C-alpha cells in the first residue's frame, strides 16, 4: 500500500461507503452536543419519528450559555435558560448521556471530552462547534458541523464528507523561556494566515510539538480552525497514552493494551504525500499576541504595531486602518505597555490545569493592577477542583483575580460575562473578531502567562521581564 498520512489512515478506517459523486459516508465514533446547536436537530428527529442510532456514542454538556458565577440561582437570561432546559428535556427523551450544570464534571465540551477519556486516539469526533478541532490533539479526526449535520449524525452515526487535503506544519527545535503552545500557534497562524489551511487537515509535527504536553497540543489543534483548516492532528505517542490511561471512559486493563497497540500504528508513514508543507523554527518564536481583529494579526510582544502606510495592497491597507481604529491603537506604537481593562484566562484554548499553573506562576506574590478586572475561568469542574487542591485558587484570589465556575464565559459574549464597548482585554481565547467578547470590546489573544503578566502590570507586557 502507498504510504499514507495520519489523516488518510483515520479516514480510511471510517469510510462506510464512497458514493458515485465522490462523497463518502464517514462513520462517527463520538458525537458531542451542547445547548446552542442541538435543539433544532433534536426537533428534526422528533418530527421524523427517528431515534438516536447510538446514544452511547454521544455526550451532551452545557457550556456556552451558562453563568460562571453562583450556579445555585436560576439562570437569569430567559433565552439562555430556555436553551439549557430544552437540552435537558431532549437528553431525557432521547436517552443521551448528559453532564448537568451542577455536576463536578461539567465544563467546556472540548475540555471535558479528553478529560473524561471520551475522546480517544484514532476516533472520528464531531460536535456542532467549530473548535471541535481541539480533540485532534488526541490523534483523532475531529471537526465542527452544522445543525442539519448534527441531526444527520444523530440519526445515522455517519456524516457525508469529501476527503480533505493534507498539510503538515513542522516546528523543530526548543521553545525559549516564556514561550508556550499558544505562542507557537499564534506564530503559525501569523505565518500561514487565516485562510492558509483552507480545505486541509493540518498535522502538527516536529520536535517542538512532540515536546508539548497534551494541554499544549490541545491549544494548538484548537486554533487550527483560525488557520482556516477543517481539523488539526497530532500523532498519538507515549505522552498521549499516559494522558489517556485511567480516564473514566478510557479502555481498561487488557483492552487498554490492545488499544495502544492499534494507536501506535497511527502516524504518517515515511514518504506519505502532503499537499502543503510548512516549517517553523522553535527558536524564532517569541511570546506573541494579536494586535487586530483577525487571528492572523500576530506580533511578538517586542514589536511595534504595523503601519498601514507600508502596505502596498489598497484593500489590505484599508482593512488594517479599520482594525487599528477599532482596537484604539496607533501605527508604529510599541505594543508592550498598552494598558488593559480586563484579563480573561479561560476558554477551550487555554483553561486546563497546565494553563492555570502557568498563569499562577506569574501571579504568585503579585497583585492585579489597580483598575484591572482579571478573571480565571477553569475549563471544567475537575480542572477547578484540581487547581484548588494545588492551592492555585489561593494564589489567584490573593492576587485579586476572580475565581469562577467552568464555562465558555467571556470567550464569546453569549452569557453574562461580556466586555463593554471600548474595553481592552488580554484574553487566552481563540477569536478576536469585532464584538466577539461583547459589543465594541477589544481583544488581544495571548498565552495564559502573558495574560497573567498583563493582569499584574496593568498593560500588555513581555512575560520574560517578570521572570
Amino acid at each position, binding site marked *: 500500500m502507498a504510504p499514507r498520512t495520519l489523516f488518510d489512515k483515520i479516514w480510511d*478506517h471510517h469510510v*462506510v*461507503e464512497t458514493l458515485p459523486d465522490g462523497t463518502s*459516508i464517514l*462513520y462517527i*465514533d463520538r458525537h458531542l452536543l451542547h445547548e446552542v446547536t442541538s*435543539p*433544532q436537530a433534536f*426537533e*428534526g428527529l422528533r*418530527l*421524523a419519528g*427517528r431515534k438516536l442510532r447510538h446514544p*452511547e*456514542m*454521544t*455526550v451532551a454538556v452545557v457550556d456556552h450559555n451558562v453563568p460562571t458565577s453562583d450556579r445555585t440561582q436560576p439562570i437569569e437570561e430567559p*433565552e439562555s435558560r*430556555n*436553551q439549557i432546559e*430544552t437540552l435537558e428535556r431532549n437528553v431525557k427523551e432521547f436517552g443521551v*448521556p*448528559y*453532564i448537568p450544570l451542577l455536576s463536578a464534571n461539567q465544563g467546556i465540551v472540548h475540555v471535558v471530552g479528553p478529560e473524561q*477519556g*471520551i475522546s*480517544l486516539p484514532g476516533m472520528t469526533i464531531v460536535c456542532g462547534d467549530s473548535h471541535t478541532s481541539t480533540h485532534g490533539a488526541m490523534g483523532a479526526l475531529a471537526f465542527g458541523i452544522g*445543525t*442539519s449535520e448534527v*441531526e*444527520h449524525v444523530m*440519526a*445515522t*452515526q*455517519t456524516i*457525508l464528507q469529501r476527503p480533505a487535503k493534507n498539510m503538515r506544519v513542522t516546528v523543530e527545535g526548543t521553545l525559549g523561556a516564556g514561550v508556550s503552545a499558544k505562542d507557537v500557534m499564534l506564530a503559525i497562524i501569523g505565518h500561514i494566515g487565516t485562510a492558509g489551511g483552507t480545505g486541509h487537515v493540518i498535522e502538527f509535527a516536529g520536535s517542538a510539538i512532540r515536546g508539548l504536553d497534551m494541554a499544549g497540543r490541545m491549544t494548538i489543534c484548537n486554533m487550527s480552525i483560525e488557520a482556516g483548516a477543517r481539523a488539526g492532528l497530532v500523532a498519538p505517542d507515549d505522552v498521549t497514552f499516559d494522558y489517556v490511561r485511567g480516564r473514566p*471512559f*478510557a*479502555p481498561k486493563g487488557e*483492552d*487498554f493494551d*490492545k*488499544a495502544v497497540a*492499534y494507536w501506535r500504528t497511527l502516524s504518517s508513514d515515511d514518504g506519505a504525500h502532503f499537499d502543503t508543507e510548512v516549517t517553523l523554527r522553535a527558536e524564532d518564536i517569541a511570546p506573541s499576541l494579536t494586535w487586530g481583529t483577525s487571528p492572523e494579526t500576530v506580533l511578538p510582544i517586542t514589536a511595534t504595531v504595523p503601519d498601514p502606510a507600508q502596505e502596498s495592497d489598497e484593500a489590505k491597507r484599508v482593512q488594517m486602518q479599520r482594525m487599528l481604529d477599532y482596537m484604539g491603537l496607533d501605527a508604529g506604537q510599541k505594543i508592550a505597555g498598552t494598558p488593559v481593562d480586563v484579563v480573561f484566562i479561560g476558554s477551550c484554548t487555554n483553561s486546563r490545569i497546565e494553563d492555570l499553573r502557568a498563569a499562577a506562576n506569574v501571579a504568585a506574590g503579585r497583585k492585579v493592577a489597580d483598575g484591572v478586572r482579571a478573571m480565571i475561568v477553569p475549563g471544567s469542574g475537575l480542572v477547578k477542583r484540581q487547581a484548588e487542591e494545588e492551592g492555585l485558587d489561593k494564589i489567584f484570589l490573593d492576587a485579586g483575580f476572580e475565581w469562577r465556575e467552568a464555562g465558555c464565559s467571556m470567550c464569546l459574549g453569549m452569557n453574562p460575562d461580556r466586555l463593554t464597548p471600548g474595553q481592552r482585554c488580554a484574553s487566552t481565547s481563540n477569536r478576536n473578531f469585532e464584538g466577539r467578547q461583547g459589543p465594541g470590546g477589544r481583544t488581544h489573544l495571548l498565552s495564559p502567562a502573558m495574560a497573567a503578566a498583563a493582569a499584574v502590570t496593568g498593560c500588555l507586557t513581555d512575560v520574560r521581564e517578570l521572570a
Partner: protein
Amino acid sequence: MDKFTVLSAVAAALPEANIDTDKIIPARFLKTTQRTGLGKHAFDSMRYLAEGSENPDFVLNQQPWRQAEILVTYDNLGCGSSREHAPWALLDFGIRCVIAPSFADIFFNNCFKNGILPIRLPRDICDALMGDAAMGSNARLTVDLPRQVVIRPDGQEVPFEIDPFRKHMLLEGLDDIGQTLQHEGEITVFEQTVAGERPWMPKISFE
C-alpha cells in the same frame, strides 16, 4: 420529510422581485430552539403593521390565501442571508411549492432539503399564474411532480424542469438522512466489522 407528489392548492401571488430571506424571516426570530413555529413570523414586516396587528392589505392575511400552499413571485426569490430558517418559516406557514422566474442558490437548495418544491418558470408564465392565483379558491393550481407539469385552472399544462435526483428525493420524501439511511445495511456491516477490530471501544453512560 413529507413526500411531494401531486399538490392541488390555493396559490398566492407576491408580485415582487428580490424577496430576501430577511423578509421571509427577520433575524430577530432566529434565537429559537425550534424549526417549527416560525410560520407566524413568516413575512413579518409585510404581514403585520407597526403596532403588531395584521395588515389587511397583505395577501396572506386574506381569505382564501391564508390557506395558500403555493407562492408565485418575481425574480431572485430568497436572496440574502443563507439562513435555513427561511424555508422552515415557509413550510410552517403551509407553503409546499414556490414558483418564480429565478431563485437565489442557497435558498433554492434549502427548499429541497426541507421538502419544498421550487419551480423556475419564465416571467410571462408567472404573470399568468398570478392571474390564476388572484381568482382564489375557484382557481386552484395543480403541481404534478411525477409528470413535471403545473396545471392551470383551465386545464392548460405548463411543463417545468427539475434535476432527476432531486425529483426522486422529493417524491420519496428523502432528506440527506433518508438518503443515507438507504445505506443502513452497509452502516450495520461496518459497525459489526469495527466492533470486531476494536473491542475496546468504550460505551458512554453516566448511570
